[in-house]
């Protein structure tokens, strides 16, 4: 699936670069609002770099034909098919709104699930359903959890499908349960925890407004306006490499760049971070699976 998508992505990029400015501006603004921080003008004077400009044109053209939709369709099939050692579908999976209810579930996770007495984020809950309903082994699903040349793991497509069923809805990460509130507080501590050879925490790069690494604008994830970036555009089709990735991958690769050891896939640590940032962003509209640079 990867090769054709990359080709079409490149073709669209060329088209986007050549297209008259008006084409991008004709797009209705209301339908799919864009990520705010991608439009923010970098502060230093050398900031209007050609790469960012090209990417924005590309995104504008790709918005209606996002490769992420192919993974959404694949995820929908996987959701309904009888699969795994128990030959069951995921249609009885409870994502927090009752068994089988997918619409609107993504924007309300991470949340507390009484059946496991735990807070779980979306992908973690989907993996949980694959294990409990279909009989897959958690350790097998954790072996190669991220998209690569070897393929797109099923939980990635499934998460993309589930996320797409919350397109246009407001984030409402619940904070009523004591464990949800604790996940938020612990997530904030993890966010601010400096360690490792470079003394980095998440906040080193994502704790201030208007900062960049090279030309990449860094969202301030400790604020309501900035925290939407951990939801918006994820799961996302990432141009670097041409892979579909979820927020689980983004957290993993941030820890790599933080020079930390590797966090476990769908672990408490990731859930806590996603609870902190998700709850910070609550109230803002989620635009569905997107495109990432």
């Amino acid at each position, binding site marked *: 699936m990867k090769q054709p998508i990359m080709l079409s992505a490149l073709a669209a990029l060329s088209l986007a670069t050549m297209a008259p400015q008006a084409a991008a501006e004709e797009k209705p603004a209301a339908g799919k609002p864009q990520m705010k921080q991608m439009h923010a003008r970098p502060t*230093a004077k050398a900031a209007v770099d050609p790469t960012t400009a090209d990417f924005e044109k590309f995104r504008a053209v790709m918005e209606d034909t996002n490769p992420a939709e192919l993974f959404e369709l694949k995820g929908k099939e996987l959701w309904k098919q009888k699969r795994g050692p128990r030959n069951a579908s995921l249609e009885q999976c409870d994502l927090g709104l009752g068994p089988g209810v997918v619409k609107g579930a993504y924007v309300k996770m991470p949340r507390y699930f009484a059946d496991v007495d735990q807070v779980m984020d979306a992908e973690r809950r989907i993996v949980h359903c694959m294990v409990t309903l279909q009989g897959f082994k958690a350790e097998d699903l954790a072996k190669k959890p991220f998209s690569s040349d070897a393929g797109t793991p099923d939980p990635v497509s499934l998460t993309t499908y589930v996320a797409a069923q919350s397109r246009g809805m407001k984030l409402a990460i619940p904070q009523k349960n004591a464990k949800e509130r604790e996940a938020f507080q612990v997530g904030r501590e993890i966010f601010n*925890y400096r360690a490792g050879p470079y003394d980095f925490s998440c906040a080193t790069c994502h704790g201030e407004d208007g900062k960049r690494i090279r030309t990449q604008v860094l969202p301030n994830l400790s604020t309501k306006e900035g925290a939407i970036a951990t939801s918006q555009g994820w799961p996302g089709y990432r141009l670097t490499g041409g892979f579909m990735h979820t927020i689980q991958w983004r957290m993993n690769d941030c820890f*790599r760049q933080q020079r930390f050891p590797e966090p*476990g896939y769908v672990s408490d640590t990731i859930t806590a971070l996603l609870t902190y940032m998700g709850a910070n962003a609550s109230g803002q509209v989620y635009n569905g699976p997107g495109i990432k640079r």
Partner: protein
Amino acid sequence: MNLRNIPLSGVAMITLLAAAPSHAQDYRAKAITMMKHDFHAKGIAGMERLNEDGLQAVCNRSNNKPPKGIAEQMEKDEAATVKLPADGKLMGDWKAGEKIAQAGNGMTWSDKPGVAGGGCYNCHQIGPQETSFGTIGPSLYKFGKTRGYGPDNQKYAYTKIYDSKITNLCSSMPRFGHSGALNEQQIKDLVALLMDPSSPVNQ
């Protein structure tokens, strides 16, 4: 780990902990326990990286705003760890320095062991020809020209790259010499990039 800092950090932590509300400590303790449970070593990134050294512990417990007395003492401790070049020369080759400033590799679990790049452009404006630069740190363009080319400023630049915490205990910048990310020659080359009058930085 910086062993020098441990005794002082113990005292500093007691002071800070005494002042902090207890629920914050509980969440921090839970966060650390959780990470130690959830993470695993990968490549060169071992689990020991999750342990705070004394300086990190103080910065983590003071929201990067340590009490003045503690900061001053610990900055002195950091300064005492700096190894200046034995040959007394602080300036290398600015062209080599530019390459090191451009390279962002090193120290991640996907990197091989050995020296890293400086990744300087990730956060700083440096040479005028490079327009893709970050803004987490201050602009270093015209560093030598503005501050002067004298030996004191060479030493300041060398020391700051070696251990950024000497002048600002909870600086966001890594301690490149202290952590072993950059070797002596690399730091000399970076000093030249900033301080050589013929470097593009000073044109």
